[in-house]
């Protein structure tokens, strides 16, 4: 089973990388970019029997730092 984990910074957490990307986009002449937040995508190939609880645990124990990040799990259809 292919699983995609999307890790994003929580609202309110300053994102220096997103800000730098934002500035770079403006430097390239792209107007109208209001905000940029950078995150991370992690693709997993797991046994079909892997439970949702186990996936949640993988995310909260390692893939995301719950102090600053949220995660979302997408399973490939």
């Amino acid at each position: 089973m292919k699983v995609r984990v999307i890790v994003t910074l929580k609202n309110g957490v300053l994102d220096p990388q997103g800000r730098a990307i934002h500035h770079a986009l403006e430097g390239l002449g792209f107007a109208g970019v209001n905000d940029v937040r950078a995150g991370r995508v992690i693709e997993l190939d797991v046994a079909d029997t892997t439970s949702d609880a186990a996936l949640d645990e993988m995310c909260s124990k390692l893939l995301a730092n719950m102090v600053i990040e949220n995660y979302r799990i997408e399973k490939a259809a």
Partner: protein
Amino acid sequence: MAFTSAVITFPGSNCDRDMAVAIEQVCGGTVHRVWHGDADLPDNLDFIALPGGFSYGDYLRSGAMAARSPVMQAVVRAAERGVTVLGVCNGFQVLTEAGLLPGALMRNAGIRFVCRDVKLTVENNQSLFTAGYDAGQQITIPVAHHDGNFFADDATLDRLEGEGRVAFRYAEGVNGSARNIAGVLNDRGNVLGMMPHPERMIEAAQGGSDGRALFESVMRGLVAA
């Protein structure tokens, strides 16, 4: 009582030798060098130091992989028993990732790696690690990091300040850290994490010796205990 300590080396640690030399020179005793894959620590440790560097290439997040390595399970158990633990720079990142200290260390607000001497204020001189300093004393210690921007929610920051758990604050802008926090203690006071490198300021030949009092404080505190 001979002072017994351990310096943990992860793949990618690069301040482990400096840390071991600083402990040897200031505290004396026996300094064990422990590899990240070791499941057990030496017996009867007084002090454990997690050094700076780029453990596991900073993969995923700085300190994230090291915090889940076999030896860290043993370090967490030791800290819970009350063993004194110091994490410097990457060691601080590892301690937050391992849950031994609150908050997280994010990319510097200015994006750039910062490598220079900075001024710190000793915020709490009542701790095991800082008793050798004066309250409010200003000291100079080098930093060298990319991810030193301390973040915690406001309630956590209020609690840390209210409980005297901010050991050091930057006396100048360095990396965007919340409330200029440079080093924090756990609730029991036996774990300190800090981004600046006290082990690089042990004697005049290094450009200053403001870090020496930290190691002296630990040794006096533990030998007297």
